[in-house]
């Protein structure tokens, strides 16, 4: 059992409330996974900015002071890139006006032991071990503005309770995946991806799903096609939510054991494991509320 709460805000007037709305949703799914948690927020001022790549690094302590990390990165990157490093909660954010891959290369050189948990121009990813609401508070979720938000509370089954094993998994620019369930053939698919040269950060089954989707997108699939292909290749139980810079997708396995409920209004699309996470959203009384059909891919774009 895990909990998922995701929110895509169609009405820009709601963007300043993204953090408080997501926090109220997340609060209701804590029971489903109280051991660790993660968050992804999109277009949140102070964490990301336009035309700048931002990497989210696991942990607040990278073994060097932030000024030391910034200085080392500046040596590797153009001076005009405005490289900056800051710590929010248990996450270190590195940003620079260069290509994401170039920034990632510089970070790997400077901090070889670091784990990149989020990357792109729009997304900031935060995850940690502990009570989900403590993690949200530590990162200041309540006050965050943004266009989309994704949260996950984990009850670990397939791999250890570690911050690295928390969701979301963000393995390509602005792409995030959260998962309720377990993949049963992930080891086989992991071996296939390893042969293709894909590098993994954890032993987690969901990371295999994220790497698979990233691999399909790289090969030219649309998000919908990538998730349809995932359904053909992956065995197991899953309700998945995938977010990109401007879209959100939900898919459940064909047996649909894992719950999902969606509320849609002109102002937002919200998805959660249980209705109680949606109950406090504005206009929920008149929202279109439905459970996603088994095996069907749903996508919404901003």
């Amino acid at each position, binding site marked *: 059992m895990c909990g998922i709460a995701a929110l895509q805000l169609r009405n820009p007037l709601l963007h300043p409330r993204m953090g408080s709305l997501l926090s109220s949703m997340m609060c209701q799914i804590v029971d489903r996974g109280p051991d660790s948690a993660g968050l992804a927020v999109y277009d949140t001022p102070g964490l990301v900015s336009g035309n700048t790549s931002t990497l989210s690094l696991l942990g607040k302590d990278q073994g060097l002071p932030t000024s030391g990390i910034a200085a080392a990165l500046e040596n590797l990157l153009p001076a005009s890139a405005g490289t900056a490093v800051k710590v929010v909660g248990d996450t270190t954010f590195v940003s620079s006006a260069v290509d994401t891959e170039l920034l990632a290369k510089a970070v790997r050189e400077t901090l070889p032991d670091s784990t990149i948990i989020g990357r792109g121009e729009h997304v900031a990813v935060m995850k940690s071990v502990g009570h989900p609401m403590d993690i949200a508070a530590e990162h200041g979720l309540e006050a965050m503005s943004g266009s989309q938000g994704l949260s996950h509370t984990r009850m670990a089954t397939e791999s250890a309770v570690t911050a690295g094993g928390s969701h979301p998994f963000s393995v390509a620019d602005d792409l995030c995946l959260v998962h309720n369930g377990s993949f049963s053939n992930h080891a086989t698919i992991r071996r296939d991806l390893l042969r293709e040269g894909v590098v993994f950060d954890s032993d987690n089954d969901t990371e295999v799903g994220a790497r698979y989707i990233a691999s399909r997108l790289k090969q030219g699939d649309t998000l919908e096609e990538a998730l349809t292909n995932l359904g053909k290749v992956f065995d197991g139980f899953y309700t998945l939510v995938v977010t990109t810079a401007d879209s959100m997708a939900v898919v459940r396995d064909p047996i649909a054991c894992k719950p999902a*409920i969606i509320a849609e209004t002109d102002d937002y699309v919200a998805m959660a494991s249980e*209705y*109680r996470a949606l109950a406090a959203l504005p206009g929920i009384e008149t929202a279109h509320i439905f459970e996603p059909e088994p095996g069907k891919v749903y996508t919404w774009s901003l």
Partner: protein
Amino acid sequence: MVTLTAPKTQAPTAAAQESAAVDSFSVDLADSPVRDLNQALHSAVDGQSWIVENPGGKHSLAVGINAEATVTINGHVGYYAAGMHQKGEVTINGNAGVGLAENIMSGKVHVKGDASQSAAATGHGGLVVIDGNAGARCGISMKGVDIVVGGNIGHMSAFMAQAGRLVVCGDAGDALGDSIYEARIYVKGTVASLGADCIEKPMKAEHLEELAGLLAAAGRPDNPADFKRYGSARNLYHFSVHNSTSY
């Protein structure tokens, strides 16, 4: 044999009417715990009624009622609402989460919206009415409950259904009635696929009559003649010696 639970029509005595007027309660779950509501309902006596506001998708609401009480819940409920229902009537003016009226024994549960998966699972008796759609595994392992769904039902519904009736006024998903025993299924719309050992069966006068009774009890306007009946081919009842080499 299964008995249909229809609303009682006997006129209440003057004393009962008086106590009914006194014995109506309103509970707001925005500021009181679910446990208090359920405790009050477990202590209920016949003729009492409750109105529950702001359920907010909370779990295990109005479970295990064992008195002829009336409970009306205004809003959406979470998992296992009206579970283990024994007596009385629960009406939900909203949607219901997973496991609505699970293991219902008798009495009536009515959802005005949709119900999630496993509605009326393992129900032994009583009537569950869902005006909207029901998700997957509706009536799984039903053992005597009657279920009337106004809309569609999801896949694997009535899996291993042993007794009772399932009425679907919309369409049924895949693998309807897989490994069914003696429950009877009536579907007005299409069936995506039938499960193992489930077949279409002729609608005889007795079936039209029982279906009319079920639709009336659920307050549905549908015409029994528009439905098809499904049930067990009874091929899985006995081991076939021809399959001995398959194991």
